[in-house]
């Protein structure tokens, strides 16, 4: 510090006061310019951000008002074709409004509430469209009632947004204030979620299907009550001795009880975390995190090991559907088999380490919630179903499959595996109504087969 001071004094002496003054002035000028530049950049950035918020808000307001008008039309139309195009428009606008809503900086409890109505509207319009196209018999009264219910919610939202819009334009609410103002306005005008209807909502459109390697039906929404479990409740101690037996180790330690989607006991078994159901003591999930450094065994051995492991838990009637190799591990998806019919809702995923062949991860949520004894009774023959398929599809394999639907049920289908040119497809024809329930494209990727 002293040296620096001396240096400055020496420079001062050399240059004289005038020049030093100029230097000071120059430094201050540069700094001022620099700050002005930063401020300008900041202003531009803020403007761009506010513009994108404004765009989303205007689009959102427009969407909601369009949905409202289309739904009003739905209430009076009697023509199926007109109903269909209107439903299609409601569906598209509901989805676009969900996307616009997610861009707006409103507080979470408001967006959650609005998201719920919009998802309901989107789901319901899709379900109705399908029903009309498949000429299913519709209960007019139910539909009127549901549309009225949704219309009232959207109308409420539309009104709330209109007053927000007016306030923004008249009072000039800034976006940093909007969170508070918007919350107040919206909160006052939108009533709370009706608990009786919210339980019924399903969300069939999750857009991440493509990244899931375990096959076509892994996104299936879980049924609310686990179908595979009996009412017998096991104690912590019973769970502990069960695990000691199944894993052939004494190193079992109870950690905690979880009460989320399902009641679980969590244990530490050797270096893994194992979750079993409190009801019935079934294996629900296992998490291990050992890093596997090399690959020593082949896929077939890994699959055999996984099957052997599940057999210990009395899960035997299964078939591997898809698998994915990643970082020297193999993740295999199994689905349950009943009377030679593959039940895609009853999914179990097992990850095997490809160095020592040991099990690293188990995820049996789908199996626990859905597996039960079904009555399987195909109405039409395979031949009749085949006639409904594009004749250009080279069919390689056919079988019966129970597939989950958007409305949480399952339908019995004929599964046709076939190809057109070099593209492979899975086509599902409903055994009763003979309509095409699903089509998947099978893609072979480095990691495994992808169903899209």
């Amino acid at each position, binding site marked *: 510090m002293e040296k*620096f*001071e001396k240096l*400055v004094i020496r420079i001062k002496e050399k240059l004289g006061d005038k020049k030093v003054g100029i230097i*000071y002035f120059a430094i201050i000028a540069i*700094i001022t310019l*620099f*700050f002005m530049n*930063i401020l300008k*950049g900041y202003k531009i950035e803020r403007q761009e951000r506010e513009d994108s918020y404004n765009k989303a808000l205007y689009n959102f307001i427009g969407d909601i008002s369009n949905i409202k008008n289309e739904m009003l039309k739905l209430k009076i139309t009697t023509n199926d074709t007109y109903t269909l195009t209107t439903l299609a428009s409601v569906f598209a606008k509901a989805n676009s409004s*969900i*996307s616009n809503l*997610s*861009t707006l*900086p*409103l*507080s*979470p409890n408001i*967006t*959650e509430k609005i*998201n*719920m109505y919009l*998802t*309901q509207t989107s*789901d319901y319009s899709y379900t109705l469209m399908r029903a009309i196209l498949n000429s299913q018999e519709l209960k007019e009264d139910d539909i009127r009632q549901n549309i009225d219910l949704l219309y009232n919610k959207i109308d409420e939202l539309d009104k709330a947004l209109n007053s927000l819009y007016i306030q923004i334009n008249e009072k000039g609410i800034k976006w940093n204030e909007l*969170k508070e103002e918007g919350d107040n306005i919206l909160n006052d005008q939108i009533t709370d979620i009706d608990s009786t209807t919210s339980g019924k*909502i*399903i*969300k069939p459109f*999750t*857009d*991440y299907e*493509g*990244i*899931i*390697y*375990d096959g076509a039906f892994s*996104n299936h*929404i879980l049924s609310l009550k686990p179908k595979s479990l009996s009412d017998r409740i096991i104690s912590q101690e019973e769970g502990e001795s069960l695990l000691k037996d199944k894993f052939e180790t004494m190193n079992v330690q109870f950690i*905690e009880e*979880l*009460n*989320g*989607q*399902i009641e*679980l006991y*969590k244990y530490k078994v050797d270096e893994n*975390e194992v*979750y079993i159901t409190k009801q019935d003591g079934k294996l629900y*999930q296992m*998490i291990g*995190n050992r*890093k596997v450094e090399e690959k020593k065994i082949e896929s077939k051995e890994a699959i055999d090991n996984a099957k052997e492991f599940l057999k210990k838990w009395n899960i035997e009637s299964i078939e591997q559907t898809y698998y994915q190799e990643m*970082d020297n591990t193999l*993740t295999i998806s199994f689905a349950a088999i009943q009377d030679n019919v593959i039940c895609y809702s009853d999914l179990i*995923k097992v*990850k095997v380490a490809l160095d020592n062949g040991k099990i690293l*991860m188990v*995820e049996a*949520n*789908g199996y626990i919630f859905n597996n039960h004894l079904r009555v399987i009774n195909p109405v039409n023959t395979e031949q009749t179903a085949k006639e409904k398929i594009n004749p250009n599809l080279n069919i390689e394999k056919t079988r019966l499959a129970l597939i989950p639907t958007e409305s949480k049920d399952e339908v019995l289908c004929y599964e046709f595996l076939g190809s057109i040119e070099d593209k492979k497809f899975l086509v599902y024809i409903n055994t009763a109504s003979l309509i095409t329930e699903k089509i998947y494209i099978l893609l072979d990727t480095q990691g495994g087969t992808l169903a899209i």
Partner: protein
Amino acid sequence: MKKIAICLFLCLLLIATIVYSKEAQSSIYTDVPSSDNMVELLARLINAEARGESYSGQVAVGAVIMNRVKSPLFPNTIAGVIYSPGQFSSVADGQINLPIEEDSSVYMAAQDAINGVDPTSGALYFYNPSKTKSKWLFSLQTVTTIGKHVFAKER
């Protein structure tokens, strides 16, 4: 002496702003949506929110995102959930753009979460009780606590 001090102070300010503006620049990140990037994106969020946590603590954070994607209360995509304004502090402060260390387990955790592994049994929220003052968060029903994070659902 005073002048020198002011001069020094201004120089320091200048340096600080240069450093700061550089950081701000590096956090601009464009995201091209493709299936692999979604694993990458989820891994980056886990890295930002839970890199110091145990493996199941990391999977749990990923699982909350996946539970939200499946829930009608939240957007339908991983990116939609992660980039919802004001939802995750690591998105707001740019920590989500931190580089992932080479032998980090966050990729595996992201993949497991996408595969459906869920140590939280369906939780839609998580928070660090020592870092939040939100009464609303504290009013939620705790499902489990893993490391520093409380995982919760609505009552």
